């Protein structure tokens, strides 16, 4: 069992620079994944991940450990993504279609051709629905659904109260439900009334 994030952070603060390499190896994929879902671009996601670790390394001396290291890292990455999205909006309104055309999605499983096509269609629909959400709801959905953060971690990463994170998620899921149902998705199943 390796050292925890907090132990590694302590080691870094004590001057053990190699401890940061362990943190990078541990979190790089997740940060890049989150950035990819925020921005819809692999290249930008790589840049954001690198930038986030660089910022974290520079600011590590002032890290107070009030939040978890991962939450802090997500916070840095989320802010970087927000900056990029803001810059995009100022340059030109980012159309949904542009985000759609940011490279093929290669599913990790290897089903047959028909299934693969169907899966790509589903993925495209889902991605489009997520991008259609307001930014604050989209962030929570991504951090919760794809990054698996707890509500407390999301609240720390987004610097909002936990209740706000939950409300945003509730609203975001509601929006997704409507949109996906319009697209013919939404695996709603009949729910029997619980026994009284």
């Amino acid at each position, binding site marked *: 069992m390796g050292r925890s994030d907090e132990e590694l952070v302590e080691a870094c603060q004590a001057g053990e620079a190699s401890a940061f390499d362990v943190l990078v190896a541990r979190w790089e994929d997740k940060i890049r*994944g989150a950035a*990819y*879902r925020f921005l819809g671009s*692999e290249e930008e996601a790589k840049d954001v991940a690198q930038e986030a670790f660089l910022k974290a390394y520079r600011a590590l001396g002032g890290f107070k450990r009030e939040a978890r290291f991962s939450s802090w890292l997500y916070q840095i990455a989320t802010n970087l993504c927000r900056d990029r999205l803001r810059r995009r909006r100022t340059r030109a309104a980012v159309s949904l279609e542009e985000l759609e055309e940011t*490279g*093929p*999605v*290669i*599913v*990790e499983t290897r089903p047959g051709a028909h299934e693969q096509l169907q*899966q790509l269609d*589903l*993925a495209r*629909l*889902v*991605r489009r629905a*997520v991008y259609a959400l307001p930014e604050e709801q989209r962030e929570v*959905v991504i951090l*919760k*659904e*794809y990054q698996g953060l*707890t*509500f407390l971690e999301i609240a720390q990463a987004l610097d909002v109260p936990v*209740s706000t994170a*939950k*409300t945003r*998620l*509730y609203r975001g*899921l*509601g929006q*997704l*439900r409507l949109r*996906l*149902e319009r697209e013919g*998705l*939404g*695996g*709603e*199943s*009949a*729910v029997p*009334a*619980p026994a*009284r």
Partner: protein
Amino acid sequence: MDCERVGDEGLQADKMDALYGEADAAARARVEAHLAGCDACREEMAALRGVRRDLREWALPAARPSFTPRGVVVPRWLAAAAVLLFLFGATLGVTGYVSLRRALVAQEARAAEAERRHREEVQALQASLARGPAAPLDAATVLAGLDARIDERLRASEARQVARLDTRIAGWEERADAQRRVDMARVAASLSYLDGRHGQQLARTNELMGYVLEASAQKR
């Protein structure tokens, strides 16, 4: 039928906790109690579970390798050219090997022949040595023989010298004759040139004299 607590953020938070498995016992109890009496919320929770399932369809792109051997497509003409080139090279190689092999065989045969000759010479020498020393020679006979050979050589040498001298004299004569002919030709050419010049000069003088006579006639 809508839920009467549709805007209740506390209930929403509890639902989210329940949906993601983060609800403590109290929150779980609250949600279950509400769902038991609210069809709309029960239906909503089921729908949100479906949404979560749909969200899982959006997978991350796999890491793209920088080089995939399966992705390399070789044109047919290039493959055919490569095969032909290989066959050509192989043919050259085989031919070269055969030629080299033949040359080596011939060289070995020549070396064997030379060795055989040397062995025969050595054997002949050994045989002559085995026969013992030759009979002693008579000095007068030897000297006479030598004198005869010297005279013969001298005569041959003199004959060669005379023949060489005759040839040289003939060459000189021939060359002198040719030179004489060349000189005569040059003299003739020079005389012709002088004659030509003289002729022209004479013609010009006559012409001038004609002008002078014509002018004097006009003056008169």
